[in-house]
């Protein structure tokens, strides 16, 4: 069949070019269906007779053939389909399930904190580098102290960012303050960079009356409109399609800003990952998707999460430019996120970054990860692949940081945190009326009734209720 068509196309082309006919070619039942031979082709008169009799046949077919002929003239090996032109092949061949070579990982600093020769990267000034390092170290101290506070029963829950300090701080440093951040829950470093104070972190963890969230959510569910950091919510990946909407809004308002949203390796299995990337791509929204591939989703190793070469290969499936980065290399993260952000804003398109890293800590204070992974593995990453130490070496090698700076920073941070925790703990809880406000913009009748009812109950039987709440 294919051969027949091929020949018929050639016949038409040759007719067009050689015989100057208008291109009518209609296959009728009584016409010879098998291919014309070359000897027949040479006989002009045979063709003229056949075609004059068929000249008034369907002009619709003529138009279709015109199209075929046109594309033939441009490129004889392509077909038109609704999605555009696509080349064809007669080879029965499947695209392999994976590349022979995994997508390489972009890095700038080696494990000893030295810049790899001939690296592409955006230079970081002393001021910026020191600020980045200070924040990475502060984040470490904060995590350590809050984790201990939970262990002591002073807060109910905590999630650490141990091992992912570079992803947190370096990505935040690469963004503009007006970029809108939609976190998952392991990115408090971004908020720390933007100026959320240690006291504000503590207030949220204790759910006291100074908590911006008014004590409604579990610890680490931070949010701050002042810092363009959307409030954390526990459901995984829900922020991704929202980020596409945020990016679209920024595009429509012609703002020099983008949406930046974070997700873990596990979160990319959620339907919202597919929804978020597809919408951002179709709507051409300026969104930077940063996936922290840290190897574990609670106890589920990535080998049980997907069969692809990580997350970076999924970008192309959505028409999204992507890059794989060493997430423990602060300079690489900084350069990659800076570049991605520029692309997103200038070209009004989404970009995907897969940051390869490792979750050194447990999933949360409710988890003991030694139950499902080797203690050796944890130790290895904690000691030999530590992103904070690696960046520290580079900063120190430049003469920008010293041992004295280090001990001063850590002891100051520790002191501030302990004070913040003390103050947060002593502070009153939010007034009881905040249980009922903000469900809607204005309290509805049923809520007002329930509030009155509850007030009466608490006044009558205060022993049934925890103290510290102003009624």
């Amino acid at each position: 069949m294919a051969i027949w068509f091929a020949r018929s196309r050639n016949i038409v082309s040759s007719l067009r070019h050689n015989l100057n006919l208008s291109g009518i070619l209609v296959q009728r039942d009584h016409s010879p269906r098998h291919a014309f031979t070359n000897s027949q082709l040479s006989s002009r008169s045979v063709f003229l007779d056949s075609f004059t009799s068929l000249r008034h046949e369907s002009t619709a077919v003529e138009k279709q053939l015109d199209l075929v002929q046109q594309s033939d003239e441009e490129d004889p090996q392509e077909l038109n389909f609704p999605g555009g032109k696509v080349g064809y092949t007669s080879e029965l061949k499947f695209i392999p399930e994976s590349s022979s070579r995994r997508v390489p990982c972009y890095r700038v600093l080696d494990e000893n904190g030295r810049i790899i020769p001939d690296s592409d990267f955006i230079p970081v000034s002393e001021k910026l580098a020191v600020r980045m390092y200070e924040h990475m170290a502060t984040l470490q101290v904060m995590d350590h102290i809050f984790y201990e506070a939970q262990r002591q029963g002073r807060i109910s829950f905590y999630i650490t960012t141990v091992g992912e300090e570079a992803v947190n701080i370096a990505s935040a440093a690469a963004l503009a303050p007006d970029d809108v951040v939609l976190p998952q829950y392991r990115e408090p470093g971004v908020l720390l960079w933007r100026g959320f104070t240690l006291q504000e972190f503590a207030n949220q963890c204790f759910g006291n009356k100074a908590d911006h969230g008014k004590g409604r959510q579990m610890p680490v569910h931070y949010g701050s409109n002042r810092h363009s950091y959307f409030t954390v919510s526990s459901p995984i990946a829900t922020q991704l399609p929202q980020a596409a909407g945020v990016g679209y809004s920024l595009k429509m308002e012609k703002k020099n800003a983008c949406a930046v949203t974070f997700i873990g390796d596990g979160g990319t299995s959620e339907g919202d990952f597919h929804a978020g990337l597809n919408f951002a791509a179709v709507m051409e929204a300026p969104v930077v998707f940063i996936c922290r591939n840290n190897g574990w989703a609670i106890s589920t190793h990535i080998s049980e999460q997907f069969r692809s070469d990580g997350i970076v290969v999924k970008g192309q499936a959505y028409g999204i430019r992507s890059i794989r980065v060493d997430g423990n290399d602060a300079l690489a993260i900084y350069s990659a996120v800076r570049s991605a952000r520029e692309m997103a804003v200038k070209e009004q398109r989404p970009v995907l970054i897969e940051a390869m890293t490792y979750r050194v800590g447990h999933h949360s204070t409710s988890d003991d990860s030694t139950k499902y992974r080797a203690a050796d593995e944890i130790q290895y990453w904690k000691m030999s692949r530590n992103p904070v130490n690696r960046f520290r070496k580079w900063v120190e090698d430049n003469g920008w940081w010293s041992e004295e700076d280090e001990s001063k920073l850590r002891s100051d941070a520790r002191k501030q945190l302990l004070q913040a925790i003390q103050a947060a703990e002593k502070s009153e809880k939010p007034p009881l009326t905040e249980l009922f406000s903000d469900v809607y913009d204005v309290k509805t009748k049923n809520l007002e009734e329930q509030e009155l009812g509850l007030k009466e109950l608490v006044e009558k039987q205060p022993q049934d209720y925890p103290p510290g709440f102003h009624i």
Partner: protein
Amino acid sequence: MASLLSRFCRKVAVPGSAHGARMVSTTTSCGSETVKSLNLYSAINQALHIALETDPRSYVFGEDVGFGGVFRCTTGLAERFGKNRVFNTPLCEQGIVGFGIGLAAMGNRAVVEIQFADYIYPAFDQIVNEAAKFRYRSGNQFNCGGLTIRAPYGAVGHGGHYHSQSPEAFFCHVPGIKVVIPRSPREAKGLLLSSIRDPNPVVFFEPKWLYRQAVEEVPEHDYMIPLSEAEVIREGNDITLVGWGAQLTVMEQACLDAEKEGISCELIDLKTLLPWDKETVEASVKKTGRLLISHEAPVTGGFGAEISATILERCFLKLEAPVSRVCGLDTPFPLVFEPFYMPTKNKILDAIKSTVNY
């Protein structure tokens, strides 16, 4: 069978208007009011035109809305306001609602369309866990009040499992969102504009049966009908009937038949199911002493149960009979059995009589 035929054959008289019995009107009008005879999809279309016209930061999107939508509710919007504001989305309800939440969180109005209420479930997580809690969980630092989700719902005569559902009960159980269901073209335009402009996320179910079937005089200007205010659309003394959406048409027919047998029925359109106007229903039941609720959705766990429980709490000593619910059966919405499944006029009439004769 007759009721099934009537669904196909005649234009539906809009409840509360054709019989001059509407006593309480909550529409606001300003100045000279020109009206036009419109069906439901045209009234909704008008509301959307007005919404986009009056707020340059408002958007309408969903599957197939660009060419006018499968029910023509979005006709002319893309041509008039441009593809940046009125656009087709990929086929993904969780993406549609999630994207809408993002837009709304940035201070825009996002009026999203879910093609059939039967397909709203992939977006349930975004609606319940995100939209409904967006303001509360952030301590009012953020909100997505600009989000309105529109979806056609309800029986259409041949819709079967997946083109006939009434999922309102699922959403009435979610603090933080509002649920609104109009009964007619005029109501739909005013309620939709209120929903779009309400500073809370709203789920707006449109009775698809009425898109073409219901025709009413609809004021051409910009007007809003308040949310959470029920309306007594027919006054009576012997029994209170409560319903919403297309079911009110059926209930009104039952009221007319009951009147011939000497029973005076009071009919209430709830309009907003969450938060619902308990006071209006309570006042009515305290007068009549009897309550009947009717909805297409299956009876078990349907919103009628919430109304019944609340009225029992508030009006127990005034009740002359148990609260009656005339609803869909506890089955998936069937195709050939639809006439048996539905809460028909005669089922309602029987229930009116047995309640009155209790």
